[in-house]
């Protein structure tokens, strides 16, 4: 039983971070129809930017976070303006190739400045253990779940309450109609990339705190694909369900069966979902009136 509880906590923590990374991916796809293969590298850049401000520049935690968010926003805006905007109207395949190229460039730039060795970063979240329902679990995993839930709730609120959030969804629905409302489509695209970079930064920092500041963070971004395929490419709530499902599944398989198998399981889910429901379990249904 205690084994089960701790697997659930580990799984939810992984899932929460996955949901955050998937959120950025979904934001970009929903508003701009671009499939961003560089999402994992956004996590990587985010983690290293926080490391730069927190460890190298010795900024206090709050300032380091602000610095990280600013750099991530700038990264999102620059990528949208100079990489993606010139590609508007190009075929989906060219755009995908460009984001794959972008992922290599981002990774290379990080390696150029920071090398490939693991960087030491003092833990931000407390590493002590607490007892939950008879199982002792690390406190930082619980806090990761709480933080990610808070961030996801804030994003959800932004999309339903703020006029910018509503405008983003409007553009996702019907670009021409959004234009007739005076909504600037390029600005919405820029906002989507900036928000995606910020959510990736948060995911990257949390992930680095649980593991380490290293190149592997980028690989975590790859599991985003099973998550968004499961949740639906354009569904914000779907990222949460997809993230938690994949997170829990990985932990259960690794705990009860085999850790090696756990690495493969997300992709088995990916294939299964593509066979059964190609638009995802929570993908937005196409509304058709008869």
């Amino acid at each position, binding site marked *: 039983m205690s084994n089960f509880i701790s697997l659930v906590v580990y799984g939810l923590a992984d899932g929460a971070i996955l949901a955050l990374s998937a959120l950025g991916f979904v934001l970009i796809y929903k508003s701009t129809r671009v499939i961003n293969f560089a999402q994992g590298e956004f996590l990587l850049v985010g983690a290293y930017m926080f490391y730069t401000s927190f460890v190298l520049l010795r900024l206090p935690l709050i300032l380091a976070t602000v610095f990280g968010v600013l750099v991530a926003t700038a990264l999102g805006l620059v990528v949208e303006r100079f990489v993606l905007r010139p590609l508007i109207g190009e075929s989906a395949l060219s755009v995908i190739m460009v984001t794959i190229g972008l992922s290599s460039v981002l990774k290379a730039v990080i390696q150029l400045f920071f090398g490939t060795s693991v960087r030491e970063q003092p833990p931000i979240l407390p590493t002590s253990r607490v007892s939950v329902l008879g199982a002792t679990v690390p406190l930082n995993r619980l806090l990761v779940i709480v933080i990610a839930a808070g961030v996801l709730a804030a994003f959800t609120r932004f999309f339903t309450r703020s*006029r910018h959030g509503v405008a983003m*969804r409007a553009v996702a629905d019907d*670009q021409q109609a959004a234009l007739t409302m*005076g*909504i600037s489509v390029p600005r919405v695209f820029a906002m989507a990339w900036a928000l995606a970079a910020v959510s990736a930064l948060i995911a990257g920092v949390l992930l680095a705190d649980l593991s380490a500041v290293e190149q592997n963070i980028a690989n975590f971004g790859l599991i985003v694909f099973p998550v968004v395929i499961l949740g639906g490419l354009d569904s914000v709530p779907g990222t949460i369900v997809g993230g938690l499902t994949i997170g829990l599944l990985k932990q259960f398989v690794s705990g009860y069966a085999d850790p090696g198998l756990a690495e493969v399981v997300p992709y088995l889910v990916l294939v299964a979902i593509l066979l059964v429901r190609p638009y995802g379990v929570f993908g*937005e249904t196409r509304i058709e009136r008869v």
Partner: protein
Amino acid sequence: MTGPAVAPVVAGSTTATTDLLTINNLEVIYDDVILVLRGLSLAVPAGQIVALLGSNGAGKSTTLKAVSGLLPTEHGEVTDGSIIFDGEDVTRLDAASRVKRGLSLCMEGRHVFEHLTIYENLVAGAYFRGRADTAADLDMVFDLLPKLADMRARIAGYLSGGEQQMLAIGRALMARPKLLMLDEPSLGLAPLLVQDIFAFIKRINAQMGLTVLVIEQNARRALEIADRGYIMEQGRVVLEGVADELRDNPDVKEFYLGLGESGGRKSFREVKHYKRRKRWL
């Protein structure tokens, strides 16, 4: 018709007789080859309802897209002529700046945001106006369309065609336009609903003094509520005048209102004659 003398543009100095919108010799080309508007000129006087009529492919929708700045999204471009709105040349402005100046378009086929609620559709309509004004605008629209207020949490994609059309007009009103352009508001609606929509257009024109430019296939209905009418054929205006006069014009009667001079069925000879006359028109 004698146009107003070219006066220096002074903000806010528009009088009752001025034209809110003037289109001069507008030429529009799609994909660099297809000439759709060939020297179109028309004027929309402030406070009036103007109907733009014509058969399919005459360039009515293109006219509205040119005025609202949507042509670039369809590979179209204005190659000649000018669009003057409220004393300002807006020919080269982008779509968003035109909405800010008070030009609102209600697109053909309604184009509501399907996955958003009615409330969110309306909020999106007031996007550029900032937070403070939105509440007052919402009250105004819900006042005009109480039915929408009752359904504000419903997803727009599941509304009926008539409700969607009302929502689309309400959404356009959220931008507090000076000129509301409607592209075929009656498209695909039951006759009773068409009556409602036109009564509503007349009402907002009378109550709010809103200037309206409406495109219609349903020429009879449009001329009933309009003050002026323009009839387009192949990218230019071929007939214009006061709506009542247009309604009594024998050519208009025959070509656009479906009323023959003599009534009854047409013989083949008359059909040939008809085609020749129409070509001339």
